[in-house]
């Protein structure tokens, strides 16, 4: 059998034949692409299947998907207007997707401590985000530090300029000496966190510095989540988070509120997201 016939037998019919050494490389290559295809389409189905609140109210007698589509169309024409607020779930999902784009964005964050929102010992924080890459500039009593991360790893550039890979012991040190919530204020992680385990509500349309935004609130459903509440203003036109208030309730520590605001989308070099760029 040719490698293609072997792969065809494996995937499209019957028993998987043994792979001889001569065919193995090509068989592996075909199966590699097969795996990418299966995942790609499965992911697309999963994304498309996220339920929206309006669908959950369909009457049971609507049996066929075609009839349901007609009802959706009539409902939209008769009842929905162009100024209807989007669902909070859709807004959060859109915000997470926008932050996942490989676009440089700069947010500034102020940290307030306690219910009276006293100015903390930390801040302001400057978050620079490009999809999974981020760099955080922290001003604190020990000096200035940078935290830098990508999808897999994190580094701390301490006040003296030394680079430390962030291991659990470093996390503990940052939490103790700088602030217990500073690592949690990454807006992309916050938006992803909101996707499950939070009661989401759309509150209103509001203007943020002249930009039309939808204000949503997320409240945790169980106390094990460190982010207790989030309010976010997400620009309607772009899905960009213009402002967010994130309330952390760290164990054995005072409540902290991070207030983040979008600053700019100035393009930065790839090196900006490496620890070496911030050593002194």
């Amino acid at each position, binding site marked *: 059998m040719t490698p293609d016939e072997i792969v065809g037998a494996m995937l*499209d019919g019957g028993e998987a034949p043994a792979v001889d050494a001569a065919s193995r490389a090509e068989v592996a290559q075909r199966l590699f*692409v097969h*795996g*990418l295809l299966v995942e790609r389409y*499965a*992911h697309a*189905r999963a994304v498309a299947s996220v339920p929206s609140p309006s669908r959950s109210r369909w009457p049971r007698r609507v049996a066929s998907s075609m009839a349901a589509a007609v009802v959706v169309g009539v409902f939209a024409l008769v009842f929905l207007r162009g100024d209807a607020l989007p669902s909070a779930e859709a807004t959060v999902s859109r915000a997470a997707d926008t932050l996942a784009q490989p676009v440089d964005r700069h947010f500034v964050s102020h940290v307030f401590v306690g219910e009276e929102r006293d100015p903390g010992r930390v801040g302001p924080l400057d978050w620079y985000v490009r999809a999974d890459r981020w760099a955080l500039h922290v001003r604190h009593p020990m000096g200035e530090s940078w935290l830098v991360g990508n*999808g897999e790893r994190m580094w701390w550039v301490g006040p003296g300029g030394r680079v430390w890979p962030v291991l659990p012991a470093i996390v503990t040190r940052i939490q103790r000496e700088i602030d217990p919530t500073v690592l949690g204020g990454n807006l992309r992680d916050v938006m992803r966190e909101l996707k499950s385990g939070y009661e989401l509500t759309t509150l209103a349309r509001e203007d943020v510095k002249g930009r039309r935004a939808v204000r949503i609130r997320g409240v945790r459903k169980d106390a094990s989540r*460190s982010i207790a509440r989030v309010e976010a203003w997400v620009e309607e036109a772009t899905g960009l988070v213009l402002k967010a208030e994130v309330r952390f309730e760290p164990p054995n520590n005072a409540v902290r509120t991070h207030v983040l605001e979008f600053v700019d989308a100035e393009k930065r070099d790839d090196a900006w997201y490496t620890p070496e760029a911030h050593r002194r």
Partner: protein
Amino acid sequence: MEISAREVFDILVRECSRGLRAFLCSAVRRAEDAEDLYQETLVAAWKSLDRYDRSRPFAPWLRGIAMNVASDWMKSAARRRVLVCDEETLAQIGNHFSRLDGIAVDTWEEKTSALRDCLGELAGDERELVDLRYRDGMACESIAARLGKQAEAIRKRLQRVRAQLAMCVEGKLATAGGAP
């Protein structure tokens, strides 16, 4: 906020989940079969987390765990039927995924842009075949009935399309710097 080992693990897994799923999907016929493997891999990885060298990338380590889980499945007569290839072939498939790891972009979508581009280069009827097989999960017999053709002809056509996609992806990965 306490960042527990579990939260760090969750963040790392989330970043690697699509790549891990794709790797496991390459060893089975259907996405649903890969899900059990995926869950077992995560459990095994969590139990082995203290042996993970944090100076090394997480994705290849996780894939290694997945290979061990698949290897265990191959020893079980019931579970072996779910897998389509042997350990040596799976190891070579892993090498292809390692090439994707080496592409310096941030998201899985970007890493697999070669596949997206190659799908876009398929002729209309070829793309329809891929959609019916992978998007709609149809067997060759059902596709044949839908298109009014013989099942064997559909199987052969699908083999050629897979080979074409594999060559195309290989070519784009080589130029993208994901060379082996």
